[in-house]
């Protein structure tokens, strides 16, 4: 179930950001997400492209924060998973 795995990874990653007061360094997120560096790079690009997260800059440092879409995904995650299971999708 590769795609279901992708949804779970997405939820885990967004939750890490949220639980870190919605402000996390990419290196910290990489460590906490337990993904390989190359996998994280690919996944992070997807998060930015689909507007689940934004990059914010404070001085020279780069941070990641959730967008309203990212918060919405976390809010609706259980509904999405329940729907997929209910209809065997």
């Amino acid at each position, binding site marked *: 179930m590769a795609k279901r795995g992708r*949804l779970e990874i997405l939820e885990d990653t967004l939750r890490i950001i949220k639980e870190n007061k919605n402000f996390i360094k990419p290196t910290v997120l990489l460590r906490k997400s337990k993904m390989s560096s190359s996998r994280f790079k690919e996944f992070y690009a997807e998060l930015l492209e689909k507007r689940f997260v934004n990059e914010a800059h404070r001085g020279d440092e780069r941070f990641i924060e959730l967008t309203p879409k990212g918060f919405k*995904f976390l809010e609706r995650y259980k*509904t999405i998973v329940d729907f997929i299971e*209910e*209809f065997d999708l």
Partner: protein
Amino acid sequence: MALYAFPVLNLGIGAEILYSFAIILCSLMVYFGTREIYNLSSYKGLKYFRLSFLFFAIAYFFRLAIEFITATFNVHEVLELYPIAIGYASLFIFMYFSSMSIFYLIYSVLWKNLKGNSKMIYAFHAIAIAMALAAIIFNNVLFYLGLNLLLFLSAGIFIYLSSHNPKFKSKKNRFDKVYILFLAFMVLNIISILVPTFLETIKLLLYLSSLSVFFIVLYKVLKKSGD
């Protein structure tokens, strides 16, 4: 009860329009009711599930068009006035979209077993086009019935096998019985438009049953999608 015990019902264009309108409305409610969870998840199974209902709504729109044309005009007169254009085009579009709605429903359950091989959907498009062309070329009742029986049996087997694959077995209640019932009514509805006399005696029963199945699916969808 034997079929001949039912009185022959002529439902009339008003009832047909109302029925088609209810099916189109239900299908579009499923499509738009799942838009948010699809936009958030980009989940392929959800995409195909939604497309199935969108295609069903389009097919029913053309079903309505076919019935309106055949009820309002004499079909032969229409075909003489606009050779092929109206009657055959509507029939082709109806057959293509209704077959694809069934194929999308199968694919929404099947895709995860295909290990990333998304090319099968193109094969389904090709089969749907071939079926639509065959419906026009072979103007034969037995051919229509055989084609739809084959479509239903293959769809039922696909969904049954896919949802009973232990690798993908979900923890919750199975929905495959409703799927198979739903497919049966989709196919019977296709038959009722292609071979109107075949189901004339049980048309009202078919319509009420179809609507009941649609309402069950719609209720489940709206309840589960949280809309």
